[in-house]
């Protein structure tokens, strides 16, 4: 048993870290709660440069423009991107759409869609959730009706993150309304500038802007279908299990913890420093226990993936634990900072750039890849074998 990386992996990690340290300047770092158009395009450019080194899709096979390494290397990259607070871009393409095309796509689709993702040139958004299909995703209503060599899409999708910059949307739509709900769904990749697609911006409380996306008689060629018709639900679930380690999310939070720790060691307080206060000390140490457990669970998922195993319950375990620990940290940090925790990132005198205020908003995102209750259902039913 060994929890450490191989020498090559350690070297890769150091190289990525050195590269990001060199390339990232403070004005482009995305502290929690601070997103901007300028940072977005900086990140896109940064991703292109990561791609030039074959790091962006380091875990993909080389024939598709990847680095030919494993999920561990991909997770190392994710971790470093999160820790250096690079604004999020390209996640859907690299982690979900790309792997789905690799597994289920035709040779033509692979040739068309994969190289731009690997080069960091294509942005994807995801169209799964609908206004009336959230936790019960398989009840989604958006229609895709075959019409000659086309499909006609009608319906709407919710919470479309990255919509404003996306070239493609990776979506699920119902192709057989008469089949049982899981068996009438298909997976598509659609160009966002197709006529009939419109959006209504949906700003989030963390400062990101997503959208509701409407499809009004959107005509797409049949070649947009990924995998088999009516198997889309199963294709999508398989690829959801691919990239679930969540190291980026963890590392972003860990960075803020490390910053808060440094702050607490230097901020003067009652004749000493803040961090020596017994209550502060206790809270910070307890938070660390949860963060370290979260990290270990994430790496276990990445390790399983690197061996070709499908971490199903394990991915939900890491996700659920992470959500809880991020929330716990945000609450404890707010308590530690008191009124200073209410100062936003725009405030020059906010401790650690106002990251805690931003984190406390971001920590309300308790529904990533399913609500906490859905993850508990997955763990109980698929992991523990309890009856449905």
């Amino acid at each position, binding site marked *: 048993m060994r929890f450490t990386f191989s020498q090559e992996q350690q070297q890769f990690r150091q190289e990525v870290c050195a590269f990001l340290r060199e390339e990232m300047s403070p004005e482009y770092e995305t502290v929690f709660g601070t997103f901007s158009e300028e940072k977005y395009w900086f990140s896109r450019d940064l991703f292109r440069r990561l791609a030039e080194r074959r790091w962006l899709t380091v875990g993909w096979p080389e024939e598709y423009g990847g680095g030919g390494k494993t999920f561990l290397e991909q997770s190392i990259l994710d971790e470093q991107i999160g820790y250096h607070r690079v604004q999020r871009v390209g996640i859907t393409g690299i982690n979900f759409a790309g792997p789905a095309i690799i597994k289920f796509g035709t040779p033509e689709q692979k040739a068309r869609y994969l190289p731009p993702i690997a080069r960091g040139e294509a942005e994807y958004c995801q169209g799964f959730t609908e206004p009336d299909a959230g936790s019960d995703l398989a009840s989604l209503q958006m229609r895709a009706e075959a019409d000659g060599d086309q499909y006609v899409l009608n319906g709407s999708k919710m919470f479309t993150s990255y919509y404003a910059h996306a070239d493609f949307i990776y979506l699920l739509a119902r192709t057989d309304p008469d089949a049982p709900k899981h068996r009438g769904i298909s997976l598509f990749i659609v160009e966002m500038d197709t006529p009939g697609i419109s959006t209504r911006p949906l700003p989030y409380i963390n400062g990101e802007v997503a959208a509701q996306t409407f499809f009004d008689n959107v005509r797409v060629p049949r070649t947009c279908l990924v995998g088999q018709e009516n198997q889309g639900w199963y294709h999508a679930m398989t690829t959801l299990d691919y990239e679930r380690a969540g190291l980026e999310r963890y590392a972003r939070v860990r960075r803020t913890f490390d910053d808060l720790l440094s702050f607490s060691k230097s901020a003067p307080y009652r004749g000493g420093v803040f961090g020596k206060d017994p209550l502060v000390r206790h809270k910070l140490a307890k938070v660390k226990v949860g963060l370290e457990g979260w990290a270990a669970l994430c790496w276990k998922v990445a390790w399983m993936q690197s061996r070709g195993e499908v971490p199903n319950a394990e991915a939900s375990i890491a996700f659920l634990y992470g959500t809880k620990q991020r929330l716990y940290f945000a609450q404890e940090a707010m308590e530690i900072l008191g009124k200073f925790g209410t100062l936003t990132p725009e405030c020059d005198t906010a401790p650690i750039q106002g990251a805690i205020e931003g984190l406390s908003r971001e920590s309300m995102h308790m529904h990533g890849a399913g609500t906490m209750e859905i993850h508990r259902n997955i763990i109980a039913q698929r992991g523990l074998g*309890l009856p449905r």
Partner: protein
Amino acid sequence: MDLGLNQAQEMLRRTARGFLEANCPTTLVREVEASGEGYSPELWAQMAELGWLGLSLPAEYGGEGGDAVDQLVLSEEMGRALLPSPYLTSVVTCGRLVALAGSLSQRATLLPRLARGELLMSPALGEEGVGCSAKVVKEGSGYRLNGVKTFVPFAAAADMLICAAGGLDDGEVSLCLVSPNADGVSIEPHASLAGYPQARMEFNDVEIGVDGILGGVGEGGDALGEALAWATLVQCGEMVGRGRKILEMVIDYAKSRVQFGRPIGAFQAIQHQLADLRVAVDAAELLTYRAACSMSEGRNCAEEIALAKASADEMSRMSTVVGHGVYAGISYTVEHDMQLYSARNKLSEAGSGGTLGQIDRIAGSMGL
């Protein structure tokens, strides 16, 4: 990165589980608890034959030379089976102390007997206050020991105690070898949870032989830290094994117990508690094995061990509540086994400095 066990460890796990399921049923656990002796000498002898007592003792002294991960694999099974034994205190804590601090002749005399189960040792380390007020001073060709120790496990059953004492120089620790039957030694048992044998001991002018201090006067400090690190890890292993066993038991119960016409395990109110427990057990297990790997690779693992214990403590408390909560009424009875698990959970949670002790260590290692 390789988070799996190797073949030998897998085999040890299977063997240990099979042996303990056959030879350490909860009826035995109850008998030992009632006896107040804390262990079954017959079972202890069998464990010695299986090579378990020497598992992580040095090979040149009759042990198997196993590392911290090997030790954890066995400890998980012991925790799972609620094995009542002085394994943690005699073999792990005292065995390490002798191996690390003992002179060549002390190691050669004591370790093979520990491994064969012929010698039972107990650590007398803790005191009522903070620090070490027990003192050993030179007298004639040997030494004299004075002081009070608390929570000494298996004090009456032990053949030999290792009593930590200060000397003339502050901060130095001398590890004195004392027989519990020696003149000037008195034992006053603490009435304890689950019949766990622990006692308050007084040492009044107890004679210590010329070769009666491990490694000599003032040479025990480093060994003490390292031995306690091992003991904490082993305790984490026991807790993780017990937590996983509770999870399995409660899952079985939730699948078979029918109310409102359905197995209660079909209710999300039950499922979600069990999902949360699974998450906690996985996290504690990973942190425990991570610390063990750091230890066997020779890295400083003090903080990782404290993280593992704090995480295991939290999981342990959760497993008690989820276990009793899902079993409900039936587990409030003495005849149900759940109470055996929850009592041992509490003993472990309080061990190795408790959760607050770990939090203090973690904060200290973060520079706070």
